[in-house]
């Protein structure tokens, strides 16, 4: 019962290659079926996201070795995506058994993600697992492994702070708005200009159900386009000063050498809005909002450098959580291994019993054929005595090995039994 994993991710392969080896849902299902029908694997699962493509599998009993199975999987991957194997091989990583399990658990924990601790990966693993279960790709080993991975992911996010705190400038801006206003559902925002970070902020604001969104741009046509895309109202650029009266948050990303929001304009707006709190998220470089605005009562001003600093602080805070997460991952790897060893011990004992049974059968047939003076009754008694002896000196002590609490010794014992009695011959 071995586990093989081959794959590539954002660390080992450039985006061009990752794009070529990514799997759609249909392709994942097809690849999985082909791997099983060609006898390369008996259990399969394809995990494909924008940052990684990984094939998890359990080779069939007949497979020569895990390494050969990995080789066959690599060849399959290259053929499936029509890529030169040599091109692919440099970017691929291969993990077996414990290492493969640890790798998956670390991925689920967000430790292997481009953005440390990101939560999306857990949903992607859940989805990949659901698809594999739906088309019957998984068996007892991968089922157990992926269910454990989902548990690791959940525990890590609940018990450590690896996933809390915003990690992008855009998200940090939105989180700041929540620190001031609470739920954004009854609040409004105005977007000035149209930078890519600004667009990300809009996406986060929309996710959080912001009630009103306005867009202003120097080019009216561009403003109309953006408003359509965001589902926002168009605000006249010329009437910008009066537009500062209604929003709670103003996100600026205008390409301008001079500030577009002056202190005087904000002071007038604050008077008109009875000093209702106003947050400026200034993503412009150079700055779009005059720095003096920050002194006004109930005005909060965050520039791109402030937001970057927050992200940096949060990154450090997340990194500080890594040791805790690693401990959790290790705990679950051991738990999985212990389950695996338990299942394997059962299989080894069954195999040993059947092997000894067959040996005894052949031995008695050969020796008793030279002893015609024995009655059938005597022969049955001799057979029963041999069974008793085998049970007492071999099988019972072997079964005891299963109960050794130390996992490492248990695994070693199982290996020794295999070697001693040449169980599953032909395997490494």
């Amino acid at each position, binding site marked *: 019962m071995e586990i093989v994993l081959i794959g590539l991710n954002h660390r080992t392969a450039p985006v061009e290659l990752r794009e070529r080896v990514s799997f759609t849902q249909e392709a994942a299902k097809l690849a999985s079926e082909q791997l099983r029908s060609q006898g390369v694997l008996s259990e399969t699962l394809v995990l494909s996201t924008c940052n990684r493509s990984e094939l998890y599998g359990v080779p069939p009993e007949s497979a020569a070795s895990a390494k050969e199975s990995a080789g066959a999987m690599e060849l399959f991957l290259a053929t499936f995506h029509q890529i030169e194997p040599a091109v692919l091989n440099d970017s691929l990583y291969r993990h077996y058994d414990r290492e493969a399990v640890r790798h998956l658990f670390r991925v689920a924990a967000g430790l292997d993600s481009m953005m440390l601790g990101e939560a999306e990966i857990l949903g992607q693993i859940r989805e990949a697992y659901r698809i594999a279960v739906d088309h019957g790709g998984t068996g007892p080993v991968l089922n157990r492994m992926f269910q454990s991975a989902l548990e690791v992911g959940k525990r890590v996010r609940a018990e450590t702070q690896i996933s809390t705190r915003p990690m992008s400038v855009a998200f940090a801006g939105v989180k700041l708005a929540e620190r001031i206003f609470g739920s954004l559902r009854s609040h409004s925002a105005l977007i000035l200009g149209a930078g890519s970070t600004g667009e990300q902020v809009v996406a986060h604001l929309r996710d959080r159900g912001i009630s009103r969104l306005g867009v202003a741009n120097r080019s009216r046509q561009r403003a109309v386009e953006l408003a359509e895309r965001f589902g926002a109202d168009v605000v006249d650029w010329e009437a910008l000063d009066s537009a500062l009266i209604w929003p709670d948050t103003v996100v600026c990303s205008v390409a301008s050498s001079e500030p577009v929001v002056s202190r005087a304009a904000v002071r007038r707006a604050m008077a008109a809005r009875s000093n209702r709190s106003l947050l400026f998220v200034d993503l412009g470089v150079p700055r779009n909002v005059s720095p003096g605005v920050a002194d006004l009562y109930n005005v909060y001003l965050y520039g791109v450098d402030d937001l970057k600093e*927050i992200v940096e602080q949060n990154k450090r805070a997340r990194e500080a959580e890594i040791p805790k997460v690693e401990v959790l991952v290790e705990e679950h790897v051991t738990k999985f291994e212990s389950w695996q060893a338990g299942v394997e011990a059962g299989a080894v004992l069954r195999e040993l019993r059947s092997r000894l049974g067959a040996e005894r059968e052949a031995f008695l047939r050969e020796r008793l054929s030279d002893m015609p003076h024995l009655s059938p009754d005597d022969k049955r008694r001799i057979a029963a005595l041999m069974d008793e002896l085998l049970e007492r000196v071999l099988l019972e002590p072997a079964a005891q090995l299963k109960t050794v609490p130390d996992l490492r010794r248990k695994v070693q014992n199982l290996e020794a039994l295999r070697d001693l009695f040449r169980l599953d011959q032909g395997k490494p």
Partner: protein
Amino acid sequence: MSRLAFPMRNHLVLLTIVSYAGSLGGYVAFLATARRLFGRLGTLLLISGLACHYLALLERSRSAHTVPYDDLNGSLSLFAWLLAATYLGLELFHRDRSVGAFVLPFVIAVFSLAQSTQAAVPAPSPAQGPLLALHITLNVLGYAAFALSFVLSAIYLVQNGLLRSRRLGSIVWRFPALESLERMSRSSVIVGLASLLVGITFGLLWVNRIWGRYWNGDPKEIITVVILAVYAGYLWLGRTRSWRGARASALCVFNFVLVLFSYCVVNLYLSNFHRFF
């Protein structure tokens, strides 16, 4: 009866302290880890602490035949209970547990202070009637609610300072939003003001029945009118947004300084007939 009641009360006091301390632990863990389980634990332990505390007060009330107000021990204990109860109400109403970690230390401190003072041997006090008991209970509730609004406003000021200076530590991400803090503080002041008004009305009726006049010119009466005025001012100013935010919170903190003055200075040294409240 009273001989039997005392050991029982000691057990209840111990249980109350343990529950409140556990509740504080739960709220702190909730603030540090953001795990809901810890928050729920904090709330459950607070409820159990309130129940034990109530039974302890009940034991005392039974032997005194009235609300325990005639010594520092009883009155502080009542204050702690009402503070915890008001906080629980606010937590359930606003569905926000993140300030529990800041309120519980006050509850524990006041309750412990109450226990450290010698409890007067409970003797049935002269029949004062329910009017006086209601007057005292509602006024203490009012002060407890004001204490709560003080804690919330203080947190507001700290968080607002951090947000405006753009010095965000890890704690800012765990606090409730500024607007939630302000809403909670306002609800607390509304509860305080309403109970203080009703409590004062009962007090006036009682004093009129005893002495035949409503107003006695006692320093406590004067400072209470001032307190009513400043809190009413807080609510009135808060209606116009220009006073919302840090200014309103600073005013709320200042108002509570007056409450403390009334509590510590006026009661103990100036008032003729308000001993502990």
